[in-house]
């Protein structure tokens, strides 16, 4: 019984982590069609921002939930103005330029922080569940992921700015003729996506030893989750994170964590071969 509970917790945690990892990319790639290969590095920078802030004596939750997204959001703004702005609509070029950016960030962070592992301890203690020890921080991740999904849904569905952003992504000319400035909306949407990536990196930072190249570990997962999700932003994110998180944890428990990772990737290839346009192309078509 306890064992089953532990597995349920782990599966929920895996799904929550995938949602967090992919949320920023869902905005930047899913909505804006910018293939952001620097997504992992945005997350890595969010992690470093958190660790630096905590070392300077800032409260860890403040650093994770406010400071890191703000820092990475501002960085995203700068990147958008300098590079991405010139490349909208050129899918392959955005991909190459952001790959260049990711290398650049890795290099700069290595020069500043050194090629060593840094980290902070998890701020929530673990507890015993029957014979098993459970990491209390996992619940926090699940909570943040759920809150994030609801927040995104609320903003995109029920606020005026969400509506304007969605409309601009569908038809920039139409939005412009209605008096909204697409350039500005693109800029702000990109910054929001970057901030989400920063948040994800910050929240996951206590669980991983952070190195400048940590971003590479997230990027493939984020992309397959967003692409397998398909056209509906939030329903797609939730459903594909659910499928992949489940598969990953089942194989991790049954065989080993490495096999779990490989199973996730194989599942992604098979799923994309069967549903090339993603899950929400067939199911939940009308949802957001």
């Amino acid at each position: 019984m306890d064992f089953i509970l532990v597995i349920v917790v782990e599966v929920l945690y895996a799904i929550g982590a995938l949602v967090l990892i992919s949320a920023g990319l869902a905005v930047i790639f899913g909505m804006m069609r910018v293939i952001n290969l620097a997504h992992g590095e945005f997350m890595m920078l969010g992690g470093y921002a958190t660790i630096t802030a905590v070392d300077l004596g800032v409260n860890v939750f403040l650093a994770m939930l406010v400071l890191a997204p703000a820092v990475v959001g501002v960085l995203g703004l700068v990147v958008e103005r300098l590079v991405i702005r010139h490349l909208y609509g050129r899918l392959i070029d955005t991909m190459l330029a952001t790959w260049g950016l990711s290398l650049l960030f890795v290099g700069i962070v290595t020069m500043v922080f050194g090629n060593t592992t840094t980290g902070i301890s998890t701020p929530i203690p673990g507890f015993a569940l029957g014979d098993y020890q459970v990491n209390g921080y996992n619940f926090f991740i699940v909570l943040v992921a759920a809150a994030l999904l609801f927040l995104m849904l609320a903003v995109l569905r029920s606020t005026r700015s969400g509506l304007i952003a969605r409309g601009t992504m569908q038809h920039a000319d139409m939005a412009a003729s209605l008096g909204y400035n697409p350039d500005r909306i693109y800029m702000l949407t990109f910054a929001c996506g970057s901030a989400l990536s920063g948040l994800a990196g910050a929240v996951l930072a206590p669980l991983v030893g952070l190195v400048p190249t940590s971003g590479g570990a997230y990027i493939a997962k984020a992309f397959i989750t967003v692409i397998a999700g398909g056209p509906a932003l939030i329903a797609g994110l939730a459903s594909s994170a659910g499928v992949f998180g489940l598969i990953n944890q089942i194989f991790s428990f049954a065989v080993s964590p490495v096999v779990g990772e490989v199973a996730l990737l194989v599942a992604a290839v098979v799923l994309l071969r069967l549903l090339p346009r993603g899950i929400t192309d067939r199911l939940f078509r009308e949802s957001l």
Partner: protein
Amino acid sequence: MREAGWSRELTGTLVAAACAVGVLPMLVSTYTLTVLVIYGMLGLSLGLVWGFGGILCFGQAAFFGLGAYTYAIAAINIGESTVPMLLAVAIPAGFAALLGAMLFYGRLTDVYLGVITLVVTLILHRFMNATAGSDYVIGNARLGGFNGIPGFQTLNVPGHPASYVWGDSLYYFCAACLLLVYLLVSALLRSSFGRIAVGIRENETRAALMGYDVPARKTVMFTAGAAIAGLAGALFANWAEIVTPRLFSLGQSADIIIWCIVGGLGTRIGPVLGAAGLSYLKFLLGQQGLIHNSVVSGAILVLFVLFLPGGIAPVLANAWRSVTQRRPRRRSPRRRGPRSSLASGDA
């Protein structure tokens, strides 16, 4: 006409290659040059698939690594290098044919293609990293996990396992291989297959409507690129004398794409020059500690995408043309002067 153009290009390529192969060892050590030549071949493989086939493969490193691993494993089991070299071309090609057929008959394009090739590379990378210990053995070869496979039979004269090809002779062998591959690629692109491949790159729907079997042709193109990358991998294994999972890494795939972009897509010589030039730059940068290597390669990639998306080769070609054509152009007004007045007189 076409035959004449081909023979002139053939002569030109051979002369230029002979000069380059002969002169470069005076400037750079042949040990470094060998790896530059091998990377040039790897760049050419993606230059063919991406620049002419229009297939952006994020996983060219997978075929490179697969070629290297195939060579190493086969060389340990066989103890002579001829068959392993052939296998190192055949196995990546076969793998690419399977993968390509799955992708192209599934009508996957651009982003999805990129992501799946990327994921396949990651799977191989993860898997190879996890193969430590005595459970993972192929024949006599232990896969060795993170540490890779050292100590295999390196290249030898066919039939004589004791007479190794190494040092200077390995360099000349690699250069000859690159030249051969380059000429084969040129011939392929001049054939009707190559021209149709470019047609597919330009407009897939149009090519399909004209009755060409697009998925089959793309699969063949993909396979050809993988075979070249596999050969480059085998040569790399011979040069490094060890194969490690790093060959499958994302950084390796990124490098290959950067070479093609910087050198110039849609040209044959561009990716070769881009690969050799940037690898040499990386080698020089590795000797100083001030700026991290990836800062430079990242900045180069961003700047090229923003300001010179066509790469260096077209710029060089234009410069060359303007140099060679300047003289006739200066003379031509004088020569044409009387003729044009005559023409106007006629009118």
